[in-house]
């Protein structure tokens, strides 16, 4: 099984090729009427999930039935969850409702984020020799992009695990102490905004072993929370004060939140995967020399724009902002001390895994590049997607890499059909957009130059 949380439901896919062009790493191809994902290129950004008109690409969170496997289950809600509800004025309502859908305890991811804010602030004061600019390591899609394409930037990453990971480590320990259960009888589950975090839960980038037992999609949990939240309001019971973070931690749910805890540093905040890619290229060439810290979020507006969320990112951002106004700045200042601080550090270094390399041998790679260019020169440059690749270039690369046959190009198909049918008007063998002759009906209003 693929380690990615992004998967394709074959029955639904009609091979329409909508998805192949939106993938920022050109990781999707269509063959024999079905799309498939090149696993080593997928960065789990969730773009394809959003665009598929037939809802054939999904991301699999875990099933709630998994809660049965453990004696004590801890929910780790990401702060983006809080921004999904209309008219919510107390985060405690969400946290209490979580205890009614099968969880026994909660540990807010925003609490761990707050500890990390504190940690990062102190670390960046101490680490004078760190590579500048520092790049945030909190979005797994960004980590994957850097690992595949930007080897020089690996050393720029802040040496800090994701809030969800730190939360899992601390939550398991806290629950084991409180219940006296052995740690493996405790189930620790994150409630995540995106496929990238679902993948990271089972296959971490900077930890030696997974620290989570699973991850649920915000949208799945959201639906289950609605009735218990209503019931809690109707019953008028006193809510248990479960909230344990301030606005510093909750702010990590939107872009700029991580940066807000770095006063005195020149920071750049970027959202959206295309913008992130562009920014990584510029940092790599040292084009933003004045920046001290770069926060990169693959999704629009940050995690509130994740593909597992319910609400549109802008509305969710507004709601999270309103909730934050009611919170103290922090509930976790100076709490993260002593040997615990080591828990925040990477357990292993990210190693460069160049998914786009043509060949490990440079001579062979150059030979392939020449073949690709040669073939591309003979392709029409229409980037029509009929071959199942996102562009003529990607198709040429597929052919040379042995992933496709040159005969799959629609113009080769035309030549074959023409050959079988004898001399005739070549146009008749082509779909309308590629015909040279315009039908009378399409004339009339010439596009203005």
């Amino acid at each position, binding site marked *: 099984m693929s380690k990615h949380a992004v998967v394709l439901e074959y029955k639904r896919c009609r091979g329409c090729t909508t998805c192949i062009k939106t993938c920022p790493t050109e990781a999707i191809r269509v063959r024999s009427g079905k799309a498939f994902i090149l696993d080593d290129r997928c960065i789990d950004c969730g773009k394809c999930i959003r665009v598929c008109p037939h809802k054939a690409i999904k991301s699999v969170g875990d099933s709630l039935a998994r809660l049965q496997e453990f004696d004590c289950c801890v929910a780790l809600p990401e702060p983006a969850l809080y921004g999904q509800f209309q008219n919510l004025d107390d985060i405690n309502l969400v946290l209490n409702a979580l205890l009614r859908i099968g969880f026994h305890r909660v540990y807010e991811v925003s609490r761990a984020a707050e500890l990390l804010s504190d940690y990062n602030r102190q670390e960046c004061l101490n680490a004078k020799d760190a590579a500048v600019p520092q790049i945030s390591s909190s979005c797994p899609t960004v980590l994957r992009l850097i690992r595949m*394409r930007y*080897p*020089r930037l690996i050393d720029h990453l802040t040496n800090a695990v994701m809030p969800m990971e730190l939360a899992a480590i601390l939550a398991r320990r806290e629950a084991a102490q409180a219940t006296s259960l052995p740690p493996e009888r405790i189930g620790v589950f994150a409630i995540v905004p995106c496929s990238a975090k679902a993948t990271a839960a089972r296959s971490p980038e900077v930890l030696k072993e997974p620290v989570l037992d699973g991850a649920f999609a915000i949208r799945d949990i959201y639906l289950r929370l609605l009735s218990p939240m209503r019931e809690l309001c109707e019953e008028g019971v006193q809510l248990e004060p479960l909230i344990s973070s301030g606005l510093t931690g909750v702010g990590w749910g939107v872009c700029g939140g991580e940066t807000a805890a770095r006063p005195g540093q020149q920071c750049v905040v970027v959202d959206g995967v295309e913008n992130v890619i*562009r920014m990584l*290229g*510029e940092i*790599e*060439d*040292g*084009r933003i020399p004045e920046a001290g810290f770069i926060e990169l979020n693959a999704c629009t507006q940050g995690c509130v724009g994740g593909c597992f969320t319910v609400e549109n990112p802008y509305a969710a951002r507004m709601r999270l902002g309103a909730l934050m106004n009611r919170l103290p700045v922090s509930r976790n200042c100076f709490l993260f001390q002593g040997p615990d601080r080591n828990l925040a550090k990477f357990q292993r270094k990210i190693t460069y895994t*160049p998914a*786009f*390399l*043509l*060949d*490990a041998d*440079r*001579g062979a*790679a*150059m*030979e392939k*590049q*020449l073949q690709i*260019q040669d073939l591309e020169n003979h392709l029409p440059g229409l980037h029509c997607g009929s071959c199942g690749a996102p562009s003529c270039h990607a198709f040429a690369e597929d052919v040379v890499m042995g992933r496709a046959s040159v005969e799959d190009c629609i113009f080769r198909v035309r030549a074959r059909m023409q050959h079988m049918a004898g001399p005739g008007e070549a146009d008749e063998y082509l779909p309308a957009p590629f015909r040279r002759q315009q039908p009378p009906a399409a004339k009339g209003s010439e596009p203005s130059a």
Partner: protein
Amino acid sequence: METIKLVYPVDGGDLIEAGEASSKMKLTLKRLGLPPDVIRRASICMYEGEINMVIHADGGEAQVEVGMDEITIRMTDTGPGIPDVDQAMKEGFSTAGPTARELGFGAGMGLPNMKRYADELAIETEVGRGTVVTMKLKIPS
């Protein structure tokens, strides 16, 4: 082995899009598995050359040749040419106009940076006819 030839047109006047050729080249060099340091230096050289063609020469063409042990970047334009190359090479010297300066260009560091990051830099220029800037970078094996 044959060398790989890459050609990128650079549009004049389009400062916002400037940099596109160097990012495209960078991606290709990464696919070939060249050492990251060489890729970075080549990319910086090409970027500076691109910017110069856009702000000083109304565009031109970038040609890149990649061989087993050397990258050659040749930036060709038919712009105004450089009257005094030694002066142009000085750090801080710039004839950039107000529009380019407003956008943060015109620090007079482009040619000096190209010299610093390339292993060889050659400028052929003729006033009124144009400029060819050629940069070579050695690829360590």
